[in-house]
């Protein structure tokens, strides 16, 4: 017999979470963590109670965007997420700092299960989950635990390399019956004076969305202002263009 009580612990801990928004991508480096964090922040600005969970266990980066260093505290229920700019926030980086994260196979599965089993979220309208790229253990375990309350926002860039890999993720999400609410094409264009430049050539996002029956495509700009804000430790929502885009994404996921 092999009954792992952490599944029931996770169900209990997620009991007060009304909806989970999984921000996922096929490839790394497409801006998923920035979008997940910005989405969480704008939802909070719109008056929702929001949590942000960084599940990119090999390369967490949402902490850098939020500029947080606090540690969670423990109690009889497990670990209490920290408050980060009004968000309930949890990331492995709060527990292990800059230590190397050399997790493999079974360890990854158990670790993700433990994160869900030990983190006691308060009453949340939305838990935004920043998933690692790809379709590995972290993604599969998350889908297992959150399938009844999850919708997905899938992020890609217009490069053919990203689009082909993201198709595998879209297939997985479709097979697991997760609603893909929006396909986000990040770095879709660059504004230069009065011109709009499509850096990767013609976009195929709409074709891909149609293939999987995804209702909405959101194209986001490559905006150098964002990097400046991040380097200064300021909120990405200080960029008006980015804020408008994130507001649109928030409207889509809450509609």
């Amino acid at each position, binding site marked *: 017999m092999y009954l792992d009580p*952490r599944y029931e*612990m996770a*169900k209990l801990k997620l009991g007060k979470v009304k909806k989970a928004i999984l921000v996922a991508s096929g490839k790394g480096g497409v801006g998923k963590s920035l979008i997940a964090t910005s989405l969480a922040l704008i939802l909070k600005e719109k008056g929702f109670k929001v949590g942000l969970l960084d599940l990119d266990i090999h390369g967490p980066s949402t902490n850098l965007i939020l500029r947080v260093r606090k540690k969670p*505290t*423990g109690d009889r229920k497990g*670990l209490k997420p920290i408050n980060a700019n009004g968000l309930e926030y949890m990331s492995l980086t709060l*527990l*292990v700092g800059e230590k190397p994260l*050399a997790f493999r196979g079974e360890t990854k599965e158990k670790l993700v299960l433990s994160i869900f089993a030990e983190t006691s979220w308060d009453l949340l309208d939305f838990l935004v989950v920043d998933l690692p790229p790809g379709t590995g253990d972290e993604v599969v375990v998350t889908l297992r635990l959150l399938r009844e309350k999850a919708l997905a926002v899938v992020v890609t860039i217009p490069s053919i390399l990203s689009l082909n890999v993201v198709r595998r993720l879209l297939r997985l999400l479709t097979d697991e019956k997760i609603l893909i609410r929006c396909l986000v094409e990040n770095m879709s264009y660059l504004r230069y004076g009065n011109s709009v430049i499509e850096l990767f050539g013609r976009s195929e996002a709409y074709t891909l969305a149609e293939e999987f029956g995804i209702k909405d495509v959101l194209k986001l700009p490559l905006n150098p202002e964002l990097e400046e804000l991040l380097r200064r430790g300021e909120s990405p929502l200080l960029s008006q263009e980015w804020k408008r885009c994130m507001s649109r994404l928030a409207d889509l996921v809450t509609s």
Partner: protein
Amino acid sequence: MHEWSIAEGIIRTLVSYAKERGLRRLIEVEISVGELSMLDVGILEEALRMLSEEEKMLRGAKFTIKTKPVLFRCNICGSKWTLRDMKSSLEKEAQEYLLEDEEGGLDLPLHYMPDLVYAFARCPNCGSRDFEIEQGRELIVEKITSER
């Protein structure tokens, strides 16, 4: 102190196991706890005893908790070692990361997530982080004796 949360998880697991199989009462339950989770078995036993009294099908059930020692094996040099062998180096590595509980106590992050050992430990012989946990990470219900 999260032993209470684990006990609650175990009780819910048992209740759902019994309901799925139409069992009237669970008489004896064996639980295996890996040493790596650094749980206080006394608190876990107490929590199980108290919480099980609230569930009719578990009232009076006997809980046996078996603690499994940890054994690590290095994938590079083949060395094997125990938690005791590296406890002081582990505590040193993790001292900046201790987590405070509601009573002011401090716990290693491993207390909550045993697999985080990979962030803090290295092979005591060759220093590699590429090692296996051969045993001692589990937290499972291993055996249930029931009555229909």
